[in-house]
């Protein structure tokens, strides 16, 4: 790395908030106060059914884990 670049890298450790260098290196959406909200995505019927199916799957499986835990406790006693 050349000396000029090294000096520039060191300068970044002491940024000057009055300059516009922040705009030059950050994309607009990277500014914490300037993010534009995204709109909602329409979910089609198949996707909604899939999401509900997976929700039921998770609930049932968690119940099974609870059952297995219960059995493990009782077999240990």
């Amino acid at each position, binding site marked *: 790395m050349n000396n000029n670049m090294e000096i520039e*890298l060191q300068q970044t*450790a002491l940024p000057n908030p009055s300059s516009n260098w922040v*705009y030059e290196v950050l994309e607009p959406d990277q500014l914490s106060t300037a993010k534009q909200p995204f709109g909602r995505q329409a979910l089609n019927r198949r996707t909604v059914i899939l999401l509900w199916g997976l929700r039921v799957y998770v609930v049932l499986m968690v119940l099974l884990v609870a059952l297995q835990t219960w059995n493990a406790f009782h077999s240990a006693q």
Partner: protein
Amino acid sequence: MTQPICPEGSPADFTEEDIKRAGDRRRVHLLRNGKGGTRSLRLLWLLIGPGILVMLGENDGPSMISYAQTGASYGVGFFLPFIALTFAMAFVIQEMTVRLGAATKRGHAELIYARFGRFWGFFAMADLVFGNLLTLVTEFIAVRAGLGFFGVPPAIAVLGALLVVVAVVLTRRYWTWERITLGFAIFNLIFVPVALMAHPVSSQVVRAFFSWGPLPGGVTAGFILLVMSNIGATVTPWMLFFQQSAVVDKGLTTADIRHGRIDTAIGAVLAAIAAIATVLATAPLFAHHVDASNLEGAAFAQALVPYVGNIGATLFAIGIFEAGLVAAITISSSSAYAFGEVTGTARSLNSPLREGWLFYAVLVAAAAIAAALVLIPNAPLVLIVLLVNVIAVLAMPPAIVFLMLLVNDREIMGEHANGPMANFFGVTVTILLVLAGLIFGITTIFPHLLPS
């Protein structure tokens, strides 16, 4: 809400968080535009972080104990290539979060709420919060077990780890936080020398990778539980939320996606090496018919003394402690990121305390609650550790579906949306996870289908 800094006479409308991130980005820009033989390596050094952290972070307390149980129960055989496969699956999934974060500049929770609304967002968050709390408990179990080997009382061990979590986030600088955590995380490879001390037979290791065997005892209920635990040790919902948020907080853009992939691949390879090394380290317990079914982290280290010596056992205990500590840092961060993204408050490790106090409070509170739960006497720690990984696998399919919907959403992803190949792998991983869950469910309902 973060306050913009608007110096007099300047059109600037940015916060302290923006300035810190811009400082990191400027170094990347200068290197990109500069010359020099080591430029690409320096650029990689600047851009790595989230991928390695998420993969080594997921080699956490319960994961390492699952791998240790695997080695002690099945020795050198089927599980070596299986673990490598699970990390390949993890890479496929985590690479999508890199693209999502870089293309949208939004965290995972923020995107789910924005694109699918509060109703579905609530479910995703419920899975995350529940899973993170349970997993954090097991991280402190690992900390307690690892330091227990050295005679450190549980309360001191847990409090000490909590103080480290607090100290690291109080740097209030993403870059510093990332580098310190990476420094801790690299100690995950401490299991490699322990594996070498166990003197694995290289021909057995090579044969295992090519033949996916042997599998002593065949397919049993215990085998299914370990399969689930090993999958849960590599792919879990918190990883999606953490890596995407970290990519955003680090400031990666679409120009950095290639480096993000390399970062994630390096993380997957390192984590797979550490995981396989753990199996090899505890394989002598299988060979000598030692019953490891009730061994915790520290007890594993004690049991290994005859095979890897005192130094090996000490390294093993340090490894268990380190695994818990690093994951406590990363998982509590993922909870805080998600909280900030959902509530619209500060969501950056670059936030100053006055603006990000709630973010930091959630992060510390998540770790503190888990730390307190660990100190409850007579808790069934081994069972909790194994079940946490199982629950992680069960919660993963809905999380991947949200991920796949987002990463295929061309309105927000543009040209970085998934291609057919990424979708094929993503759907395959989802189907495998659902099948693993169903097999687990069926064998739980009908326990006599398989030998115990």
